[in-house]
């Protein structure tokens, strides 16, 4: 199987939620309405061809530094997130990579975690300006800040879900919930049950219809 790599940046901001409590939100971008995984949502992703073009490396694998640079450039160019270049409050972590096997290619997702602890400072990309954001996103891309719970009900490709699991494992390994340190609120886990959070739903269901994958677990093929 041929191998293709891409750089995924999980951009997380923490800000006061509607109930006054600090809430984590993640930036999601909608895929085009056509093609593979049409209309599903993913974290901002830079594809291999772009990575290579950014760094003039036709063949050699990318480094974390290169991917991080490409991701930042992507966020600035696509979403006018200029604040990301100057914001002092940003933490970045290499989360490693996961793979997903499509029928004829093996795709490698290199994931980076980009955390903005004082997310209220990132005011002008808040959910309230959702519509404005959508317009700002010049090339017709729709973006949305989702909580982990909302992520659980969004239509997200399996590969991207795996990168989110990477983040959850990283947070668990780190032994301390990052939210906690910044908000002073104690939480052992992210508030979203893993099995729900990890499951993509592509379309709105009729009322009362259960997801069939709640009954049958993914199996090793």
């Amino acid at each position, binding site marked *: 199987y041929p191998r293709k790599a891409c750089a995924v940046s999980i951009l997380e901001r923490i800000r006061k939620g509607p109930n006054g409590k600090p809430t984590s939100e993640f930036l999601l971008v909608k895929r085009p309405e056509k093609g*593979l*995984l049409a209309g599903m949502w993913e974290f901002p992703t830079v594809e291999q061809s772009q990575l290579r073009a950014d760094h003039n490396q036709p063949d050699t694998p990318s480094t974390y530094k290169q991917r991080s640079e490409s991701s930042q450039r992507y966020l600035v160019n696509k979403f006018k997130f200029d604040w990301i270049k100057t914001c002092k409050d940003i933490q970045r972590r290499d989360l490693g990579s996961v793979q*997903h*096997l*499509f*029928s*004829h*290619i093996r795709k490698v997702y290199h994931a980076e975690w980009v955390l903005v602890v004082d997310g209220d400072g990132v005011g002008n990309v808040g959910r309230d300006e959702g519509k404005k954001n959508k317009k700002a996103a010049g090339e017709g891309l729709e973006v949305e800040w989702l909580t982990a719970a909302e992520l659980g009900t969004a239509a997200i*490709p*399996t*590969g991207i879900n795996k990168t989110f699991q990477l983040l959850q494992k990283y947070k668990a390994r780190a032994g301390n919930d990052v939210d906690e340190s910044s908000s002073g609120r104690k939480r052992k886990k992210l508030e979203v049950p893993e099995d729900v959070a990890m*499951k*993509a*739903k*592509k*379309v*709105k*269901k*009729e*009322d*009362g*219809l*259960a*997801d*069939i*994958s*709640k*009954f*049958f*677990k*993914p*199996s*090793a*093929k």
Partner: protein
Amino acid sequence: MLEARLQTGALLKKVLEAIKELITDANFDCSDNGIALQAMDNSHVALVALLLRHDGFEPYRCDRSLALGVNLVSLSKVLRCAGNDDIITLKADDTGDVLSLTFENTDNDRISEYELKLMDIDSEHLGIPETAYDAIVQMSSNEFARICRDLQVLSDSVQIDVTKEGVKFAAKGELGSGSVTLKQNSNVDKEEDSTTIELNQNVSLNFSLKYLINFTKATALSGRVSLSMSSEVPLLVEYKMESGYIRYYLAPKIGEDV
């Protein structure tokens, strides 16, 4: 490399008609056992599992497992170009860019050859545990299709009640209410019309009619259908073919009383 020759093309045409409304794209997983497909519908509410066993083809050859990513609408369009009596041969090599289909008509020396472009499809295989169902109803597939279609007039949902006397399909809506009851019987004129029930425990479950009606697109594949049910477990609707099956799974509707 896959090479599979099917004496009656009509079978493959009917299989595609039975799944293409539910699933847009899917991998045909080819192995020495035959050709299988498993996929959830777009809304993740129903699961379809198809098996065309190797002994249904003559010859059948598949050296190495192969996942052929196919747009089912396109495939069904191409299959509509096959006559019902045509012999269909499927071929794919290991590079797997295209699926070749050959339709032969011996009557008038016509050979049609189609090549369908394949796609990369994100495949996730769900494990389906063996389940001992509380109730298994075997009945005429035409009767089942007809009941679903009829009750749709009244509601989006059907309640299925199985007792040892029979199976009752009921719906209720704005116009009024309705139910169709089939008694367990085995001495009807045509055996294919009989209704038989294996029962451990009475069940009363509620399902989306829209999905059931979609499943009945498989009616042409078999004169019989079996409905296997237990509480809080997905319904299994199965159409058996000579060398394989098509199975649909659908979870009961929650929080609704009919």
